[in-house]
């Protein structure tokens, strides 16, 4: 299958502080690709750059053949909402659920771009089937859900727009190992059955690399390693730095 996302030599800065330097990546359609890195490596910054929340200092990002992000000199690229409309859904770090809305209202918001009410209802039912806990809690305020349930809801909300590419920023952060495992299983199913390309950012390297066909390692804003998922798991440097071996 062809390439769906191409990151071409991008750099991102916060004021005078460089967060990402000359990053290039390629994600194939239908794949699960992960990016691992320590706290502060620049993982979230990369995802924000892809969805147009952080401007590029250099380089460009292409999605399905269309340039979505560019430097200011080249018109700056699309805004976040337009990038979402192209089919990229981000589940941001910290989830950003609408805490005072119910689960159902959150899913409705996720389908904001969908105009067909019947389709929205169908997708909601699919989500309740796929995440039964959300079905049981649909009239409950999201605030009252547990961390794991909120994470599932954030993923379900992102899927309501039927994206082609799902970006996940540390979906396992702060959750119990069993819950994390559950979420990763779901991600795998989403990828295999719904044919959604997944780009996964994680500190939990073992779990992330196991479920990915390809992986990148980010250190201080630079890609220092990239390889097939299994290969990275066996890589000595990765084992030392990220797998605690």
């Amino acid at each position: 299958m062809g390439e769906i996302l191409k990151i071409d030599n991008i750099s991102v800065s916060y004021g005078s502080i460089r967060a990402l330097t000359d990053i290039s990546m390629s994600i194939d359609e239908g794949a699960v690709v992960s990016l691992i890195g320590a706290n502060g490596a620049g993982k979230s910054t990369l995802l924000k750059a892809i969805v147009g929340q952080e401007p590029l200092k250099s380089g460009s990002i292409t999605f399905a053949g269309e340039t979505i992000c560019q430097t200011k000199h080249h018109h700056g690229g699309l805004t976040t909402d337009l990038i979402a409309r192209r089919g990229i859904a981000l589940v941001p770090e910290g989830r950003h659920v609408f805490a005072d809305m119910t689960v159902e209202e959150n899913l409705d918001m996720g389908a904001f771009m969908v105009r067909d009410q019947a389709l929205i209802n169908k997708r909601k039912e699919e989500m309740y089937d796929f995440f039964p806990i959300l079905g049981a809690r649909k009239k409950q305020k999201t605030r009252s859900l547990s961390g794991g349930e909120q994470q599932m809801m954030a993923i379900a909300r992102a899927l309501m727009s039927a994206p082609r590419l799902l970006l996940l920023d540390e979906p396992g952060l702060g959750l119990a190992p069993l819950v994390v495992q559950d979420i990763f299983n779901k991600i795998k199913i989403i990828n295999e059955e719904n044919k959604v390309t997944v780009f996964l950012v994680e500190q939990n390297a073992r779990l992330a690399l196991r479920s990915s066909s390809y992986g990148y390692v980010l250190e201080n804003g630079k890609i220092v390693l990239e390889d097939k998922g299994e290969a990275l798991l066996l890589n000595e440097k990765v084992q030392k730095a990220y797998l605690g071996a």
Partner: protein
Amino acid sequence: MLNFFQLILIYAGIYAIMAIGQNCITGYTGMLSLCHAGFFCIGSYATAIICKTFGLSFWFSLPVAAIVSGFVGLLIGIPTLRLKGDYLCIATLGLGEIIRNVATNLNPVGYNSIPRATLFGYQFASRNKLAFIFLIWAFVLIFYILFQQLAHSRLGRAMIAVREDEVAAQSNGINVTKYKISSFVLGAAVGGIAGCLQTAYTLTVQPGSYTFMVSVMVLCTVVLGGMGNAKAVILGAVIIQFISYLPQLTGLTNVIPAQAKQIIYGLLLVVMMLCRPQGILGRDKYRYGDPRTRKEKLHDFFVHPRKAKGGKV
């Protein structure tokens, strides 16, 4: 005395309309704007100029007031709405004052003896307060219904999403800038209509009556009633107007200085923030398919007031 209650009802109605506009901006979309006096001013001036200078009908001035003030809202909104919280508040405060200064320079003495509004041959004379109560509260009702509908609409949902979480809203394909500006322009237009109605009642326009205290009062009204709740802000307007006429009502004008009402507003705000930050009626949050029955809602309201705020019971 009856006369006095009628007067309060008229102003409560005018401020209710203002508050509905402010509620669109602050309650639904979550933007802390402080220039409603400016839009009020624009509406009043537009009406004065159209009715007096051009000798045209009040009914013509009504949409014009809304359009002009909405347009100025657009001009103010485009550069300022990128700002957040207190920065937006200060920027809009400054712009509201600029509007007042422009109006003052336009005509420092204001306008007097503006022609009366007529409807089917009936002349709205200031001394016939009952007619104004009907006229103004008819508009309150119209805007109440319109904004209640808005809250359930796609536009309203987008505005509420922006208020709740801008990052999440954007990620769901909502153009945050577009909805912020739409909300601001709508709120501004409604503020203009309030100005137009006030002019129809007083038949004079004085630049001195659009100070930033008016903006503060409108914001107080929204906070007091309950942000994001159209019904609540109308209640807020009635309460605030009663308070502001308290010295006259009690016949204690000699004892209570006029400034006392500002102290009362301030105290009221502090007390509200401490005891019931969601306002008297609370936020109108259960909008899309509230599963609770009326009885449960009443129960929640009296027994678990915090629940209405979304807090833990």
